[in-house]
């Protein structure tokens, strides 16, 4: 991303009107998978609000991240049904395998983890999405294999 990119997005939203702040933040999140620090400053100028207000709004909501996503973005469903079917065990395993916590990204930039609100697959619990691709009725063994396979593929590149 660069300044031109940020400006071209901001052009779409009327300046100084706070009700367009969240849609603008969502557009950044959609484009880059996170809210870059530069964007916060630009948004502040555009909406004529202090950068702290922009940051305050962005941090309030679960959707916005401030670190980039990894090449493989794991979303672990943490809805009630998934929890009853053991998503907390999957979370522990994922965190220990990837060496990151919720919202983090691994040092090699390969993995990022997001413990998500309900993804909507209550009948298929527990559910994990990797880069938007869903995996259903996930077991610990499948999860280990999935991560191993990704690591193997990446090491062959």
């Amino acid at each position, binding site marked *: 991303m660069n300044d031109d990119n940020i400006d071209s997005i901001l052009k779409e939203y009327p300046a100084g*009107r*706070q*009700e*367009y*702040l*969240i*849609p603008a*933040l*969502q557009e950044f*999140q959609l484009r880059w998978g996170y809210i870059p620090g530069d964007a916060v400053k630009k948004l502040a100028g555009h*909406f004529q609000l202090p950068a702290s207000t922009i940051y*305050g*709004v962005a941090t*309030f*909501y*679960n*959707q*916005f991240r401030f670190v980039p996503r990894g090449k493989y973005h794991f979303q672990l469903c*943490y*809805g*009630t*049904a998934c*929890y*009853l079917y053991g998503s*907390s065990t999957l979370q522990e395993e994922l965190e220990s395998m990837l060496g990151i916590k919720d919202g983090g990204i691994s040092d090699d930039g390969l993995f990022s983890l997001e413990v*998500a*609100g*309900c*993804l*909507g*697959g*209550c*009948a*298929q*619990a527990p*559910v994990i999405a990797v880069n938007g691709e*869903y995996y*259903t009725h996930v077991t610990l063994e499948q999860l280990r294999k999935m991560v191993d396979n990704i690591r193997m593929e990446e090491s062959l590149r």
Partner: protein
Amino acid sequence: MHEAMAPMTDSPNTLTYRRHVSVPFITVGMGTCGTIAGANRTFEAIQQYLGERDINARCVRVGCLGLCSLEPLVEVQLPGWCRLLLKNVQSSEVFPILDDLFHHILPAEHAFAQYRDEALSAWNGVPFVEEMPFFVLQNRVVLANCGKINPFDIDEYIATGGYRAFQKAISMYTSSEVCDLIEESGLRGRSGGGFPTGRKWKSVLFTNATQKYLICNAEESDPGAFMDRAIIEGDPHRVIEGMAIAAYGVGASKAYVYIRTEYSIAIQTLEQAIRQAREKGFLGQNILNSGFSLDISIKKCPGAFVCGEETALIASIEGKRGMPETKPPFPATQGLFKKPTAVNNVETLANVPAIIQNGPNWFAVMGTTQSKGTKIFAVSGKTKYTALVEVNMGTPLRRIIYDIIGGIKDNKRFRAIFLGGPIGHCLTESELDIPIGFDELRQAGLSMGSGGMVVLDEDNCIIDTLRYFSHFMKRQSCGKCIPCREGTRRMSEIFDKLTRKPDPAYKAASIERIKSIMQLEPLADVMRTTSLCGLGQSAATPILSALQKFKNDFEEHLYERKCSANVCKQLRSYSISPKACTGCGVCAPKCPVEAIKGTLRSTYYIVEDLCISCGKCVDACKFNAILIQ
């Protein structure tokens, strides 16, 4: 007006029920639940099949029929044959299944039900839907079209009688008459509060202002609730029509749908539906020459449980942090941008068109004396089917759980229901006979909630589930008022302590653990009476309700430090079997608290007082010598 009636005529693609088809007709359930189960790949495979075999057939995507655990659901109607419902059709099985079907051989493993039609040949050995309790015991009024019509085609909705209620409202009634009709019908808000919808509309209508707003609240962030999502994905025009009537009723010319960003399929469906409604002239300026104008915009909620609360929702649409405000002033008099605003739930609005179309008496006949109509429940957890169920108010919960969706999975024992998710009550087996209704449940000390229903079986631990809810509430508390911000945090700490053994290094840990339970009730009381909004006020509801009903579970965790469902891992006791242990010593260095003692080539042992039950030794031992109790 007459010109406007034009879209009502049936075009060739509006054969909604499709009783008699000339070419094979296939529908695939592609709501979120279907998509996650792989319906996209199934849909592609069907199209590939039809292409490769050079078969002239129509394949259409529909919403959710309500049988989420049987997804991907495919319905096939061959010319001359009854419409057949196929369950769990994965893409890899599409070719053999369709090969069989097109030769009139029944794929018995996948056949689930068929629709009776005397004029058509029935499939042998497949039950008819009207014989199946799942379909018979429901009264699908709001969900009538879900899973049946193509949500991306406005003509299909129109063919089912859609948008007639809206035309009736704007051509026959004044705004206040619309409010009267809704009030007369007895419709109450479906998000849990149960406030009479007509009364809410009137207070907006009778407030003087140059601009008024209508907001459709689709911020359904209770984990385990998916009623609103299914309605929007399966029948978006019903919601739009409901909104249009509501906006006319309250005198709003601008309406918003506030919807969770995670509901990407619902958002796409709704965007398309709004576009089509505009093209047909049901939205826009001077609609059908009535002088009434309405525009609907979608606002995507970036994710916050508290934004389901109406004042927080309004703050979020205004671009602020989604924090609630004190009421009064109520949004009905001073809401979005300080203008009168009606905030209604998706299910409430989806009820509106049929009430206007069929009259308030039609609606008032269904349900109980105080709670009219039907209610949709999203049932998930340990039941045989994870499903979306619509029943008349007054139906006992037992009928939903045992008769409609087939009871508990794998013949396990029923444990509890959490009705209304993290801010609802928990119910025991003895409470299953209480009829569903706002006042009926309130009299029993319960509340309806929005319709999320999570069922626990004997393998689930009540305390662990409460711990999950307490952590959820802690994360979702907006932090504005102290009772909620601090209270949810303390609550989650108490449950953390309860589900783990006291820290041996900290002398007062045991006594604090017991003390914290004693503080749970007064803490909950303070939160309930002094929190700013419904989130804080009801954050302790499941806990208080479980304290009464599952006292044994609390005592077992507290005094015996035991979890009989064997869910709370940190309460497990570990020991080493002297017979199996080879004295290899691999486990001892893995123990983070040095609780494993011994010398090489002789049996090791675990000092129970030091053990924190992390389970690392189990993974380390190659001889299965670690015993778990």
